[in-house]
């Protein structure tokens, strides 16, 4: 301990040993001052249609490739035959001064659709991320022209004719051909005409649970490289008509360099699709121990993320579930099977009463340990009249990773308003103000979006990498970046998807703590190329496959 640390620590020790240490950062609500004025329209008119309860998603992505994270907020619309104010998704361009400009109309995205989620990826490797908006009905693929506009290429890409109740989606290069393929989750077979009548109190219609509907398979679309996609759902082994999928995350749980997928299912067993490296997948969720809860129950899986949160070198999974189910925190153990850490730790106790949706691992305080954000909210506002302790609006959990001391929920300590109960759904992170720490975007059902700026006060530094593939897909999705610091290795995967209906920024961020540099940085590209850089100082870098590293 240095003399300075001692001087800082002494008054704290005098103040009382029982006082928990400060997290060293604040989330400041900046939604309005940043120019984000958005309200989600679920189309709810009293008919209690199932899709109304589940949206929307949100995203941090750099649509104009200027190095500053822009924001996309997905929106629903009014049901046919029901009129109301026009509602569309919103694209906000980053003004690089902490504010955003609504460019939805200018970008050609001022289109009504019943949107649910978003996946952003540069499927044609032109340097500009394209958008896939999942919808109830026909989902849409928008090609980014690179001139600030998007063009709907759903039909020309071959994705038309796939109507469903699509939820989360992600871009990944499952066959490692350098082209981003598309995975789409579908929830259940639902249509307004076939909506089932359910009731909680025997008098009024309420939202049904998914048991009332038949499942629906996820889709996998292979990128043919000519702007078209081929439906390989059946041939890849992804097809499963019993799935009721809400969240998807990419990971490489078997460390073979081929991307695997974890799919969270609602009231159905989760899926862990192992990439067989031949264009096919095999569901190994049961054998891997992630299909069910510890007591063998198929839970209501919603959001999901995968990361090495304890810097142990193995991937862990987080899955949000229904209230009274607690989230699943699956850690890969020896023998290739996962164990749920939540029931035996305070993570289970902290999250048991919450109904979780969006979730992700991120290093909020840049101390090198991945923290966990979970946004919550019930599906039906009438629940408050029926259950004494259930709340429609619920506070998020910000589980601060304290290493061996476990997680502590500090949502109520990191700034006024952050822990305000919300009907949370989508959630994403990204460094929108370019200060090296990670800010948070939360989307709520039938409510506003929330942008929280991370104001770090603990003096920690970070090193950030934006990857550009040349042989690999241009976004570098699937690349694994590792840094070595003080003899410890930390890793991040560049990934699309994760969380719930949402996408976080593609650049990867490593917290360095008080260190000012990483001793060694390696990048394992999806193409198989491996690169190494030494003595990398804190800051933001562009890494181009085969062309080295450049500080921004």
């Amino acid at each position, binding site marked *: 301990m240095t003399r300075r640390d001692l001087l800082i620590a002494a008054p704290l020790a005098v103040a009382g040993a029982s006082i928990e240490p400060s997290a060293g950062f604040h989330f400041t609500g900046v939604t309005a001052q940043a120019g984000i004025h958005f309200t989600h329209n679920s189309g709810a008119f009293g008919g209690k249609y199932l899709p109304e309860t589940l949206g929307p998603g949100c995203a941090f992505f750099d649509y104009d490739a200027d190095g500053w994270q822009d924001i996309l907020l997905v929106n629903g619309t009014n049901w046919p035959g029901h009129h109301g104010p026009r509602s569309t998704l919103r694209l906000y361009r980053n003004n690089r001064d902490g504010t955003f400009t609504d460019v939805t109309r200018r970008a050609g995205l001022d289109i009504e659709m019943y949107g649910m989620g978003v996946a952003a990826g540069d499927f044609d490797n032109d340097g500009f991320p394209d958008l896939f908006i999942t919808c109830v009905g026909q989902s849409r693929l928008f090609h980014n022209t690179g001139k600030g506009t998007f063009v709907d290429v759903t039909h020309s890409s071959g994705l038309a*004719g796939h109507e469903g109740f699509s939820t989360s989606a992600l871009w990944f290069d499952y066959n490692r051909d350098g082209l981003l393929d598309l995975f789409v989750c579908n929830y259940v*077979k639902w249509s307004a005409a076939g909506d089932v009548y359910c009731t909680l109190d025997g008098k009024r219609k309420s939202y049904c649970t998914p048991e009332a509907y*038949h*499942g629906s*398979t996820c889709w996998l679309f292979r990128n043919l490289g000519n702007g078209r996609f081929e439906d390989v*759902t*059946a*041939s890849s*082994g*992804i*097809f*499963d*008509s*019993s799935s009721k999928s809400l969240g998807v995350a990419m990971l490489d749980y078997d460390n073979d360099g081929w991307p695997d997928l974890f799919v969270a299912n609602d009231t159905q*067993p989760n899926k862990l699709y192992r990439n067989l490296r031949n264009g096919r997948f*095999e*569901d190994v969720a*049961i*054998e891997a121990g992630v*299909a069910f809860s510890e007591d*063998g129950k198929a839970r209501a899986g919603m959001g999901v993320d995968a990361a090495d949160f304890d810097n142990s070198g193995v991937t862990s999974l987080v899955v949000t579930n229904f209230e009274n189910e607690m989230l699943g925190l699956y850690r890969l153990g020896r023998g290739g099977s996962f164990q749920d850490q939540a029931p035996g730790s305070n993570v289970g106790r902290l999250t048991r009463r919450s109904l979780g949706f969006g979730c992700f691992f991120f290093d909020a305080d840049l101390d090198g340990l991945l923290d966990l954000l979970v946004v919550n909210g019930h599906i039906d506002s009438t629940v408050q009249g029926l259950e004494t302790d259930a709340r429609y609006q619920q506070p998020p959990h910000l589980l601060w990773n304290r290493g061996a001391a476990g997680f502590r929920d500090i949502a109520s300590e990191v700034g006024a308003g952050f822990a305000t109960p919300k009907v949370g759904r989508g959630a994403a992170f990204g460094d929108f103000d370019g200060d090296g720490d990670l800010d948070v975007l939360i989307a709520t059902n039938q409510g506003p979006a929330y942008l929280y700026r991370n104001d770090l006060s603990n003096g920690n530094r970070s090193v950030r990498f934006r990857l550009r593939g040349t042989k690999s897909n241009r976004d570098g999705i699937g690349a694994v970046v590792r840094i070595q610091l003080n003899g410890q290795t930390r890793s991040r995967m560049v990934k699309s998807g994760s969380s719930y209906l949402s996408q976080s920024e593609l650049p990867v961020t490593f917290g360095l703590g008080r260190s000012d540099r990483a001793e060694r940085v390696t990048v394992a590209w999806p193409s198989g190329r491996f690169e190494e850089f030494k003595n990398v100082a804190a800051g933001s870098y562009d890494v181009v496959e085969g062309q080295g590293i450049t500080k921004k």
Partner: protein
Amino acid sequence: MRWYASPTARLIAGLAVTLASVAGFSWYALDQIAGLRALQTTAIDRNRRDSLQLLRIENNLNSIGLAMRDMVNGDEPYPLEAFRSQFARVRRDLDDALRLERSLAPESLSPSREHYFRQSLSQFWTSVDQMFALANTPHGDKQATELVRSSLEPQQEAMSATVARLLVENNLTEERAAARVQEIYRRVERDVYLFLAAALAAILATSLYLIYSNRRLFQRLEALSAQRSALARKLITMQEEMLRSISRELHDEFGQILTALGAMLARAEKKELPSGFREDLREIRSIAQEALDKTRGLSLALHPSILDEGGLEQAIDWYVPIFQKQTGIRVDYRKSGRGADIPDAVAIHVYRVLQEALNNVARHSGAATAQVRVEFAPSKLCLEVEDHGSGLPARPAAGARRGIGMVAMRERADLLHGVLAFDRPAEGGTRVRLDVPIIEEL
């Protein structure tokens, strides 16, 4: 003397009976709990876990049923082959559930039904394989769909029905086990009340006997104490009588003889005697006088005649200067009131207490001075002897005789219905205080 039996043996017997009944009941209760636990573990819990696996099997069968419906209805835009991986996943989960179910199935369930189910499932998977083989042939989808409709769906329904029946059997087994658990609870509850009644009776009997024994013990102690006091009084009185008698004998008999002997020797001296013989006679007379003096001194020491003649006050007045002379300890003697009416029976004991207290000052205190205060009042007498010497030791030295004199002082105080107190004055040393009520008949 009457013989009193010790209650210890009976009390030990009572305690043993109580402990034995507690131990017996504890064993019984533990045995019942173990039985209950065994029943819950082996029957109810196992049954529930088996039911969970059966539900999982049923869920899988339903999932297959739904998939087959999609196949028959042509709801999915994919060829039937697409369902192969879905069937494979369900099959893996079914196999796992069946493996677990086999280890958990209650013995009461019909083995033939289990056997039938496994055979049916095996046939079903054979048919599924045939169906996918057909689907893989050119234009085989129609035939495969027909196989699903005609064979696989009825098989799946039959298996679902079997699993449903197994679940019902499980429920019945669970209900029977629950009834047995309730019976055990009822029996244990009844036995708990019985045991409590028996234990209370045993505790009551032992307690009553303990109270009775205690009362008898205290009565006996009281009698013994009274006997001891009477005996002490008698002993002290007898001792005083004897001392008084010896003193009188010494004074009256030996004193007279020695006085006469001296007178006779004085007279003989006056006669004409050879010079050497006269010297001898004078020496003999001197010895006789010395013997007379010692006899008188001994007589006074054994019982001062002045006590009988002049009373307590004069006896103290006489004794204090003698003590000063004998020991060299200066005594500050103060008195108040008049001591004329002190009965003799009181006077001798007060005098003896004073004697013992002053002797203790001389022997143990190391003090050069002492104070004697006597307060005569019509109804009471108070005597205080105080020194500022080393004081009473907290504990007597090892091997030392524990204050026989002090014991005697206490006995004498008891005889007088008085109170004897030892304390330490602020200046240090010892203060002995005797308070005696003056009662006429005493």
